[in-house]
């Protein structure tokens, strides 16, 4: 019977102390279809998926599998129901090998309880072969790139022969080429009758694969419609509950000043070679390229996080030596990392401490930190950047990604930097907050700051930048002026080499 959906949720409600995370959520996935969940961060998508996967228990409502009500108490039980989930945050053990990670928690054992490594090896080889992945089963995961690991995570979920597969932003860390591999995989799974729940912020992706789209906002289901009845603008409108004026702030042709940062022949072993570029005051310069092209490595080295092997860096015409982060900061150059969790925030501390971290000496009096001055300054900057937080004493880890990112930027703005190196500044941030970040970047450029922005989203670079450098395999393969901006031109340069 086709009318019975593979998975159906009826009137699901989930309360966390003091708040309803989900209310009256009804939702269904049919066999062989892709159901996309959209919504801003905090809309309840992840909570919903965690309920389906048994990590959370709903407070009200029921879950039906093939029309039969079931209770899913934990992820293991979800697995016996053939439900598998790929998390946004990668779950892996870096010291373990490919095969150990693939079979983690699911190791075949013999009669005496000994792990059957032979069987694991055979199955891993078969799986890797079948998926056309070039890794060896005994490679440690710490030696693979993030995108390789993401692919492994995906084939791991597939290897459970799940009939329902939940993917929480599976493309946030993989390259365009791998996205294609993933999509063809999804098409193949669909034809095998697997029902897929797919969470993503990327509109172009969503419309490529979705059969049905559900939009969530504030823990409620706003709409479920076949994808062909929707377009990007409508989905965004439904997500934010207001009409977006445009995806990018208008550029007012701010005057571009003299060269602020001049980099010549920068090299760092295998990561990048012969990198020469410049940034001018008031200019937003994009760095485009595929995953692993060496963009992140360049800004990390410039910021002093990794060593520079050779080459020169000049700031405002003066050659500077950057050996550690303090050197870079001293010269007015700051970086916002692509990995906010790792390099951006102190999760266990509150908003205020995170904002103040790099500029405490500016709110000092004779007795040490002047708490009143600090509070006043931090609340001013967080108002200016529109940080949405209950108070300055709220733990930063409880805020959404967009607000965390604004706090990281606020931390640096308090040092009034001249040069900002922004590595994927809008990664994992919802649509509304993205626009705010773009606006902020544009404003900073207008104030005369030089901004370097790495992004894997080409529309973003095209929408915000004045100039774009494209990197490929550790080298700069080209430079595009605004009039030459197009996705095709960027792609061509990114694939060179």
């Amino acid at each position: 019977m086709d009318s019975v959906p593979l998975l159906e949720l009826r009137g699901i409600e989930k309360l966390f102390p003091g708040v309803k995370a989900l209310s009256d959520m009804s939702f269904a996935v049919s066999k062989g279809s892709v159901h996309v969940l959209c919504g801003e961060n905090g809309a309840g998508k992840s909570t919903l998926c965690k309920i389906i996967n048994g990590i959370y228990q709903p407070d009200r409502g029921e879950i039906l599998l093939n029309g039969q009500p079931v209770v899913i108490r934990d992820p293991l039980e979800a697995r016996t129901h053939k439900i598998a989930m790929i998390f946004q945050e990668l779950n892996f053990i870096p010291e373990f090998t490919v095969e150990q990670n693939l079979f983690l928690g699911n190791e075949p054992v013999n009669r005496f309880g000994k792990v059957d490594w032979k069987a694991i090896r055979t199955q891993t080889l078969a799986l890797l072969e079948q998926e056309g992945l070039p890794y060896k089963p005994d490679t440690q995961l710490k030696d693979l790139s993030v995108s390789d690991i993401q692919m492994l995570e995906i084939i791991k979920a597939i290897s459970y022969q799940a009939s329902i597969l939940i993917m929480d932003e599976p493309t946030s860390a993989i390259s365009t080429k791998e996205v294609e591999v993933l999509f063809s995989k999804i098409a193949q799974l669909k034809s095998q009758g697997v029902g897929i729940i797919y969470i993503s912020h990327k509109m172009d992706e969503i419309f490529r694969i979705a059969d049905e789209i559900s939009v969530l906002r504030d823990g409620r289901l706003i709409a479920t419609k076949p994808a062909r009845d929707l377009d990007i603008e409508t989905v965004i409108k439904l997500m934010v509950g207001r009409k977006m004026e445009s995806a990018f702030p208008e550029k007012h042709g701010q005057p571009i000043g003299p060269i602020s940062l001049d980099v010549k022949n920068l090299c760092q072993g295998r990561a990048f070679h012969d990198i020469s570029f410049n940034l001018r005051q008031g200019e937003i310069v994009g760095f485009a390229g595929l995953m692993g092209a060496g963009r992140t490595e360049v800004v990390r080295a410039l910021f002093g996080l990794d060593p520079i092997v050779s080459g020169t860096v000049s700031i405002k015409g003066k050659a500077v030596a950057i050996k550690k982060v303090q050197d870079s900061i001293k010269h007015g150059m700051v970086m916002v990392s692509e990995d906010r969790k790792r390099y951006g925030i102190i999760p266990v501390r509150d908003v205020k401490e995170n904002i103040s971290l790099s500029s405490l000496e500016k709110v000092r009096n004779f007795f040490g930190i002047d708490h009143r001055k600090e509070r006043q300054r931090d609340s001013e900057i967080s108002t200016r950047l529109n940080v949405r937080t209950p108070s300055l004493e709220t733990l930063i880890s409880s805020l959404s990604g967009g607000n965390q990112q604004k706090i990281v930027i606020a931390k640096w703005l308090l040092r009034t930097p001249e040069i900002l190196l922004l590595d994927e500044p809008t990664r994992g941030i919802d649509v509304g907050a993205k626009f705010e970040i773009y606006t902020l970047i544009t404003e900073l450029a207008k104030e005369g700051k030089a901004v370097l922005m790495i992004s894997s989203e080409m529309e973003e670079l095209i929408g915000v930048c004045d100039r774009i450098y494209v990197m490929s395999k550790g080298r700069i393969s080209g430079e595009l002026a605004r009039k030459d901006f197009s996705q095709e031109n960027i792609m061509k340069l990114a694939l060179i080499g």
Partner: protein
Amino acid sequence: MTNRLSDLFLAFMAKLTSKYSIYLILVAMLIICSILSPAFFSAKNLSNISRQISITTIISFGMTMLIIAGMIDLAAGSVMALAGILAVATYKATGSLLIAMLAGIVIGIGCNIISGFIVTRFKTPPFIATLAMMTSARGAALLYTNGQNIYQLDEFVVLGQGDIFGVPTPVIFMVIIAGLTWYLLNNTRFGRHLYAIGGNEEAARASGIKINQTKMTAYAISGAFVGLAGVLFMSRVNAGLPNAGIGFEFDAMTASIIGGTSFSGGVGTAMGTLVGAFIMGFLNNIMNLLGIQSYLQQIIKGGIIVIAVAYDIMSKNKKTASQLGNIEERGKEV
């Protein structure tokens, strides 16, 4: 409507229990202990408890700073003994209390600077670096004294046994160190940097914080506290005991943990540690007053540590969830 009220009540309780839980427990203990034993709530007994806990609590404050920064000091007990012994020797040589005390503090700082150097220069885990120092410092104390206790300290005892306006001197030192720790953690860049390093060392580095310098400073300050504790201890027992302070580092850690310092780093307060030390002090005292057998006392203490930490972790999880709630509520208004 009732739903809303119960939500508010839950949020209120969560705040009360998570933010002030430790003080509530302290007050509850005061009341319960006073009921259990009439001898408990007297100025003399409370003053005694303070004196008993003062020395390990002074070590606790240094330990708290290290744990906040994601480090540890297993050598505190040994270094305390070495510093105390050398302070006693200095006193015997010079007859000056002040010089003796300074000598003890300098020895404490010196030993911990060595530990800190090994941690920062060679990236050795603090557990291992200070484990080595624990063995070496004890060896040095035994070597210097040839394993013999030093007696006849004369005036030296005033530091540990004396009192000022009825308050025992070690307690006065404890209060001063508590105030100093509070000040360092709350009002200095150094304190903020400790929290940042313990909370996320890589982010701290990427924020321009001098990691090694901060870690060395933390070890040096905790070394000073350990050295002072050594001087006070030897003075209190009126002898130079090379075998003193065995296991003190663990008592110091216990007070920190009970006081809410997180072993994952980035969380902890001076007041919490002080209260944690008093909770353990009250517990020891009341068990003695009630005549509970001493081996049984150890079992009970172990249980209390587990309960305290488990409770702390649970209430923290709740707190995060309710804060998440607040933000989603906010989102709706915007």
